[in-house]
């Protein structure tokens, strides 16, 4: 499979008072097209920072990130904006829908800023909403939707323009267990059916049970990269490129 994301020894430091806090410490990662990948780790482990860097909304202090072959650390601001607009879809922890827009208008938004015509926008947005099972709620504003519905609208918004990559930062953090499981299942289904690449972050262990690849972060470092074995999918995992077998118990 083609490599979509390549993070090479990426570090990110933030100034805090008079010291530099290292949120990400030489993290490396390769993600291929069509993968469904979870970045796991406790709070403060660097999950959001890594997603921000992959999503080109932040720049690494050192190292480099290639997205679809383009070195994102060397792009101009305008090209970076265009790259995000064309190739990336975002799902946020707090949904971040535009409150004055209806569900379908929110889904239309990425196409609106891409300059897509009105009829084309409406057709694609309706299809995206249908794919997340919310056609009947298309005319409702976010404040009339449940948390789970809002996040599904956010997912529809993230995939409406068929991006190469969908990034979801703690998408289930504000959802109950049932809605959280349904959302992850929905994203997995979209990944399988549409071939979209998903990277999401979570610290909820229960959501990782059906995730084929889990990258664990701790204190800004990648401490494990576990692949579900293609055939088994239950207890056999392969770690990173070395393909060492590790027990399912280690993962959970």
């Amino acid at each position, binding site marked *: 499979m083609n490599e979509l994301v390549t993070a090479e020894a990426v570090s990110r430091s933030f100034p805090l008072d008079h010291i530099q806090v290292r949120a990400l410490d030489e993290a490396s990662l390769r993600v291929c097209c069509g993968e469904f990948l979870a970045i796991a780790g406790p709070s403060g482990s660097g999950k959001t920072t890594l997603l*921000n860097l992959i*999503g080109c*909304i*932040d720049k690494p202090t050192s190292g480099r990130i290639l997205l679809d072959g383009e070195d994102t650390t060397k792009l101009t601001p*305008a090209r970076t*904006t*265009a*790259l*995000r*607009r*064309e190739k*990336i879809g*975002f799902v*946020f922890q*707090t949904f*971040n829908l*535009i*409150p*004055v*827009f209806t569900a379908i*208008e929110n889904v*239309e*938004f*990425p196409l*609106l*800023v*891409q300059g897509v015509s*009105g009829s084309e*926008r409406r057709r694609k947005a309706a299809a995206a909403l249908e794919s997340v099972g919310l056609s009947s709620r298309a005319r409702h504003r976010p404040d009339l939707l449940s948390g789970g519905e809002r996040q599904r609208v956010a997912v529809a*918004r993230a995939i409406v323009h068929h991006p190469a990559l969908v990034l979801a930062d703690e998408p289930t953090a504000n959802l109950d267990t049932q809605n959280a499981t349904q959302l992850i299942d929905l994203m997995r289904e979209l990944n399988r059916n549409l071939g979209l690449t998903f990277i999401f972050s979570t610290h909820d262990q229960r959501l990782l049970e059906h995730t084929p690849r889990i990258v664990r972060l701790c204190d800004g470092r990648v401490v494990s990269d576990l692949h579900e074995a293609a055939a088994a999918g239950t207890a056999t995992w392969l770690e990173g490129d070395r393909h060492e077998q590790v027990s399912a118990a280690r993962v959970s």
Partner: protein
Amino acid sequence: MSKFLLLAFRNVFRNRRRTLMTLLMVGGGVAGLLLVGGFFAFMTDGLRESTIRNGLGHIQIFTAEHFRRDEVHVLDTGIDNWRHVAATVASAQHVRGVAPRIEFYGMVSNGQKSSVYMGSAVDPDAERSLGFSANLIAGHDLTAKPGAEVQALIGSGLAKSMNVKVGDGLTLLAVTSDGALNGIDVEIAGIVQTGVADLDARYLRIPLTAAQRLLQSDRVTNLVVGLDATSNTDRVYDELIPRLNGLPQQMELKRWIDLALFYRQVRTLFVTIFLFLGTIVFFMVVMSSVNTLLMAMFERTREIGTMLAMGTPHSWIVGLFMTEAALLGLLGAAVGIVGGSLAGALLNFLNLHLPPPPGLTSEMPFRVLHMPWLMAAASLLVIISLALASILPAIRASRIQITEALAHV
């Protein structure tokens, strides 16, 4: 409506109470400008028309000599063959009539007391045909009956100082065009009030024929031209200049605005006051609106961060905020136009009067003119100003750090 405009429109009404207050502020400013501007326009328009109707006319014709030197003898720079000149002028389009005038001065006496007068000799019929009317407070206007007693109108101040009333006789003394002293007896036909106290104390008007007899001259000082509408002044002025070029005496034409010094001073005063008030109102409106926009931007920090994260261009965000500001201005202007028009109609309905200003003797009506051009100008000013004032906050919003904006609570 495009989604962009729809988003801007809905954003304007996201916080309805705050938007309502801002609209009232902007609308109040626009309404204030319309009321002040409408009142000032009524004052200046009224002053203009009354100045013209009170005898200034739309155009006055003098000999060019009149402006080159002072008269050695009375009327020695006057118009010779004035009937021919008047006929030439009267045939032009938009000219309602031509009235000859003689301006002179001298002494007036009732046998016991004397005073200086500023005389104006007129053709009463020509004056009436042009609608020039003296503001009589007693008696009647001049008549031009041949052979009858010479009639005179005098100012209220002069009547008071001379202690005379309608029907009393006066003797007018003046220096003739030959330099001799001459006099005629007149009967007071009416007492007038010009509205200017200083002028009322010296004002005297007699028929043209009587003045020519008093001054021993057939000349007139000038010809006053009345038009069908003030707006035709420049057109007629331009037409008359070539018509009068071939005359033996070189003529010079003056438009009413060239001669109405008091009107110009008043208008300049009103324009200055209006600009001063307008500037204050303008800044209040802009500042309050910018404050609203800044608050809206602060509240929508995470939303802006989300838009930017999704690849929304900076210019799109700037355009959105500028459109919201312009919409705020448009709606505020609409509120102001409706409010200002209603308030103006109410004030006009109440038929209010202002006390006489210093130097004037009569009450002034308080009216507000309906001024479509001022409505359009005030609306455009508010819309463009708010849009421009939103540029800096909008640019700041568009350059926000995405990661910080997404973490904004």
